[in-house]
């Protein structure tokens, strides 16, 4: 009994550790004083000033646009790639799986620098280069979410549909896709999260003028931060 209570306390402590800083951020976003410590009363001013701050809103737009478009491209390429890998022979299968793992095992900083070195050869750094970079590190998540679903899938249903005269595109949309859809969705969501959370790779591949929320905040830390950001 005692050990159970202790266990609960322990888990509660871990949760406090994980959530206290976030809680502080939320509280501060309503704080009416510029200081980080002093509570100057409840206010929504920062929220209104956020909506009027074009730099932050633009960065926010870039972040979301980047996350959605890179996740979408990664999902399409990833699903096709996963189906292709799935139907490969042993050797190609292993090789491709290894290649898929590279961006995941590799440190962000190395991936970012490698992409930077490559991009400067043919592409002005900017939104496009960041987008390409994000797609690159997002595809593996999609593939690793879709492949297990393909393995569990009942391939005979698909073949039966073909035998019964269904067109390949029809069988693909009505039989294959529904079966792997959960995997595709979770891959897509992972990709969106990863893209929104990324700082290091964006930092290296972005040119001047393009900012996601992460890089904007990082830039502002040095100048001193306004509470708008916490919002």
């Amino acid at each position: 009994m005692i050990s159970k209570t202790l266990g609960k306390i322990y888990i509660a402590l871990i949760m406090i550790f994980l959530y206290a800083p976030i809680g502080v951020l939320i509280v501060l976003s309503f704080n009416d004083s510029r200081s980080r410590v002093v509570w100057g009363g409840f206010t929504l001013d920062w929220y209104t000033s956020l909506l009027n701050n074009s730099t932050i809103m633009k960065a926010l737009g870039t972040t979301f646009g980047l996350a959605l478009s890179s996740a979408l491209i990664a999902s399409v390429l990833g699903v096709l790639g996963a189906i292709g890998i799935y139907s490969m022979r042993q050797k190609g299968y292993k090789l491709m799986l290894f290649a898929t793992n590279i961006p995941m095992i590799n440190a962000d900083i190395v991936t970012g620098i490698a992409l930077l070195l490559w991009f400067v050869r043919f592409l002005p750094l900017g939104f496009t280069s960041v987008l390409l970079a994000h797609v690159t590190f997002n595809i593996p998540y999609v593939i690793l979410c879709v492949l297990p679903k393909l393995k569990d899938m009942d391939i005979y249903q698909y073949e039966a549909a073909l035998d019964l005269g269904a067109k390949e595109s029809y069988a693909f949309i009505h039989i294959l896709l529904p079966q792997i859809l959960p995997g595709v969705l979770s891959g897509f969501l992972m990709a969106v999260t990863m893209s929104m959370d990324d700082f290091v790779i964006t930092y290296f591949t972005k040119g001047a003028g393009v900012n996601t929320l992460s890089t904007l905040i990082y830039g502002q830390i040095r100048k001193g931060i306004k509470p708008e950001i916490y919002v």
Partner: protein
Amino acid sequence: MNRNRYRLLSIPYVIWVIGFTLIPILFILIRALTDDGGAFTLTNIVAIFSPLHRKALIMSLCLAFISTLICIILAYPVALILRGSRIKKKNIILFILILPMWMNFILRILAMQMLISNNGIINHILELAGLSPMNIINTPRAIVLGMVYDYLPYMLLPVLNSILSIPEDVIEAAKDLGSDKFHVLTRIIIPLSLTGVGSGITMVFVPSMTEFVIANILGGGKIQLLGNIIEQEFTVSMNWNLGSGLSVSLMAFVLITSFIFGRNNESTATGITI
């Protein structure tokens, strides 16, 4: 029969892998192995053993090692406790524990900074309570704290997954055969959870080894990790060859750890999230 045609579907992806994964790595290797003029040299690779860089390397290794260790020590009991409890809400608790991952990582570090900085909230509370303020910002301890805070979910997830998925029958069988609690833990639970711990280690050690943001924000730029040096070579000193050389050396260290702790099995980590 038509398998061949399906393989063609992966062509765009194969092109992508070659274009945006393999070629960039090739580029970084070329940069690392040449000097300004483009002549072959090993100096950039060996540069990691120069006194300044060696210090940063050792610092990075130490901090990453300590952070990983603390993460294991913190995460393992959570998994054991959750396994022992009969609550059905296990999944909800798991979800709550990993939810912070969904929040922007720079913001989380920033929040940490506000908590522990010299005129931050914790010191304010300590002052109100009449205690002497603590001084941990800009020290290695602050960086370790930031890393643990940031990467703990990455350890929790695989460790929890592996421990919660040990079938109850195995443990029952061991108990029937006369094992006590200690034996069950050391002979069954720990060996069976090693894969989870292994992928947790890779997921914590690799990013904390290569970190430069946390060190910049919480270390106040006074503590140089290998990541900071590489970043400066690219953004300030503009010595891209040296930066690449150091990155390649760093990559070697990362690969060595990945090999030691087994293949980075991220599927165990991602499997349960959705």
